[in-house]
């Protein structure tokens, strides 16, 4: 025992950071290596592809804005997965929660159009509506787990389908649907319900996300509820023996995660499209909700790691779009590298003796 304590003291901070980040760096190198090899084999210029992939976000103002625009919903759907993941449950429904939140936001926004509310009231109302919608939608899965022991993986996937068709229904049905359009979409939201643009470039959602990041940090580290979530996640037996209510904690994590997923939908509807439109939750042809799972797995669901891993994936997504546009390299290859990164992070962390779940 004494020897162990001495050796603990000897590890410097730098060493600790190295030990912590080693699996990530290795996973990144392996994934980029494999993807690079495939890009090369398919006959593309590997160097150019990587240059485009990694640096598009930084080479122009537009790149930065595009990256932030992806970062906003991605961070939120990542939390949607990461928070229930803290107590070891898989919310595969960040996607459905985003769709549902966006749809309800559009419905309420259109319904309130006649009241001529000022933006300062209208926008907060819609933000709360989006969060409530996503939260309640996820809570269904939390409730089914808590009271009927139904695996949330199954229930959230099923709820995703409901959300998809709900979007289509609203976007193609009177009185919500926009007249004379080929693509399913709703009427536009009133002016006062749209998120303002900051510096004429990026919508107000970026401020909301910054507040969410701070709030989640505060929740996890400073509050009783955060403590109970962490304790339950590490050792559910001890947590329940010492009076932490499992059902309550479980349902709250789904409620909070779902609320943030719903918020992602609301922000996209209010800030980007200004209406409900089929496919509003897509990026590079895939759902933000799916990327959220991936992104959360990269940071092992660590709430502090969420913004970091979200910005990283956003950079890749922007780069991947550019790569497809300019070099005709399919974006799917970037998805491939993301998947490989996640797999190797899991494998390498296991090998390093760390647990998959923190």
């Amino acid at each position, binding site marked *: *025992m004494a020897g162990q304590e001495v050796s603990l003291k000897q590890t410097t901070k730098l060493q600790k950071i190295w030990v912590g980040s080693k699996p990530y760096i290795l996973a990144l190198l392996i994934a980029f290596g494999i993807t690079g090899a495939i890009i090369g084999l398919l006959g593309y210029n590997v160097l150019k592809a990587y240059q485009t992939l990694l640096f598009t976000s930084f080479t122009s103002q537009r790149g930065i804005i595009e990256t932030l625009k992806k970062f906003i919903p991605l961070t939120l759907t990542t939390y949607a997965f990461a928070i229930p993941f803290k107590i070891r449950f898989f919310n595969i429904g960040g996607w459905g929660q985003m769709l549902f939140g966006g749809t309800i936001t559009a419905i309420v926004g259109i319904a309130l159009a006649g009241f001529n509310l000022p933006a300062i009231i209208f926008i907060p109302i819609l933000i709360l509506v989006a969060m409530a919608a996503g939260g309640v939608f996820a809570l269904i899965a939390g409730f089914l787990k808590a009271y009927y022991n139904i695996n949330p993986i199954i229930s959230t996937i099923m709820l995703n389908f409901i959300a998809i068709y709900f979007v289509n229904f609203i976007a193609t049905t009177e009185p919500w649907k926009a007249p004379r359009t080929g693509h399913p979409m709703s009427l536009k939201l009133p002016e006062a319900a749209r998120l303002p643009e900051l510096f004429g470039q990026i919508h107000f959602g970026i401020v909301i996300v910054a507040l969410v990041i701070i709030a989640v940090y505060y929740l996890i580290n400073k*509050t009783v509820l955060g403590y109970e979530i962490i*304790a339950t996640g*590490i*050792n559910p037996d*001890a947590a329940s*023996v*010492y*009076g*932490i209510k499992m059902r309550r904690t479980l349902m709250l994590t789904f409620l909070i995660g779902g609320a943030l997923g719903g918020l992602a939908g609301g922000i996209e509807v209010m800030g980007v499209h200004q209406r409900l439109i089929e496919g509003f939750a897509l990026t590079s042809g895939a759902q933000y909700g799916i990327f959220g799972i991936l992104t959360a797995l990269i940071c092992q669901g660590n709430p502090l790691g969420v913004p970091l891993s979200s910005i990283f994936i956003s950079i890749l997504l922007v780069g991947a779009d550019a790569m497809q546009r300019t070099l005709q390299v399919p974006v799917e290859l970037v998805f491939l590298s993301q998947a490989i990164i996640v797999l190797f992070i899991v494998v390498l962390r296991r090998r390093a003796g760390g647990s998959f779940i923190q």
Partner: protein
Amino acid sequence: MVKENKVLEAKNVSKRFGEVQALDKVNFDLNEGEIHGLLGENGAGKTTLMNILYGLFTEDEGEIYIRGERVKINSPLDSIKLGIGMIHQSSTLVPEFTALENLILGTDGNKMSLELKDAEKEIEKFQKDFGLKFPLHTKVKDLPAGLKKKIEIIRAIYRGANILILDEPTTSLVQEEFEKLLESLKKMVAEGVTIVFITHKIKEVIQACDRASVLTGGIMQGTIDTKKATKEDLVQLMFQDAEINITESAIPIINLPDVEKTSEPILKLQNISAQSKEKDGINLDSISLKIYGGEILGIAGISGNGQKELAEVIIDPNNITKGKLILKGKKINGMSTNKVFSRKVSYIPEDRKKESIIGLGNITENVLLGHQREPRFQKKGIIKWDKVTREAKNIIDEFQVKTPNEKKRAGKLSGGNIQRVVIGRALINELDLLVTHSPTAGLDMASVEFVFKRLVELRSKGTAVLYINEDLDELMQVSDRIGVIHEGKIVEIFGQDQFDKYKIGSKMIGG
């Protein structure tokens, strides 16, 4: 002097696990046809040494000789070939198989069909010769722990073992069963089997063994002839510098001071029946108990007879199907654990790592567990971490937790230190009732004494203590009364003047 026939010799065996020197140049030998006690506290290296002989671990240094011949044992397969059999502390039988199926499992590798009839006859002969009776055609999962031990012993013999290692075989046996087992072992020895008997109880060694070796902290303190040695010699070997007075069962001696009991019971269980939370748990069946302030009520019983359920029904009275649970005159059926705790009740669970601590959390975070909603540690849902840290530092000081600081991960502390944190946490508030389940399991002597002293201190302050433990010797040391639990029922309650290992033991097995 007759030259002894050495069947096994281990010379200068060392083994290291990371930072821990589990065995340090240990010498150990076995004479043919003896019962050899291997004595030592938990963590002394007894099981490590035997696991090396059985091939589960490989020694870092040292030599092993079987009947004078140098051998290298790389796996249990090697050791079985050399005639070494080991019976582990926990059962290694396949629960879904019958005893017979378990016995022949793996013996006839090259045949496609099982010739059960021949095997059955052979096994029945062993059973008769050694007096180890058990049903051959019942699924093992339906048999009690005592019988499983017998099946494992016969299995080893059936596979040709003539050196038998028994790792703490008496943990789940009551006195009567222990004596029967001993008889069987003596019969085996007469047939030429040599037995290693691992235990931490001095009394058992004196009763059962011809010679005994004492290991402490991975160092062999010596081997003595138990016919000539006294209990004091063994104590001397086992606890050289310790200033602890211990009984012959190697338990610290504690004096219970005179304390006036409260006139009304702190906790009353009236005819309580309750559903177990676990799938294969035991349901509580019409339990009536009264626990007064200023007394320690011991609960004895073979593991898995409803002890855990009894503890849990008190701190989480939600599964009660019948009866009344009354805490300080107020019915608390259906109350939440938080509310029960807020009525000056605390709990020290049985399984430290699984139920007491959040292993990946540090000491401070663990001190908060169960107190996180108390006003002194939070305001409007925001935790006052500075207050928690101060409390953690207090506990480390007062309970002598060996740790560099309060930021150390709780899961990395030793069992004794974890238990000090857990007890410290339970005692943050004044208590009227403490429910505790095997709080001393696996602890070294100093920590066991520490736990006992705290329980007795609580008793002196007028707290009611419900002390559940499988170890009857420990219960008899610190209890005012002992209730025996069997299959979810309290079958009898013994007063201090009626404490008797045989009587209580026979109740424990349903006698």
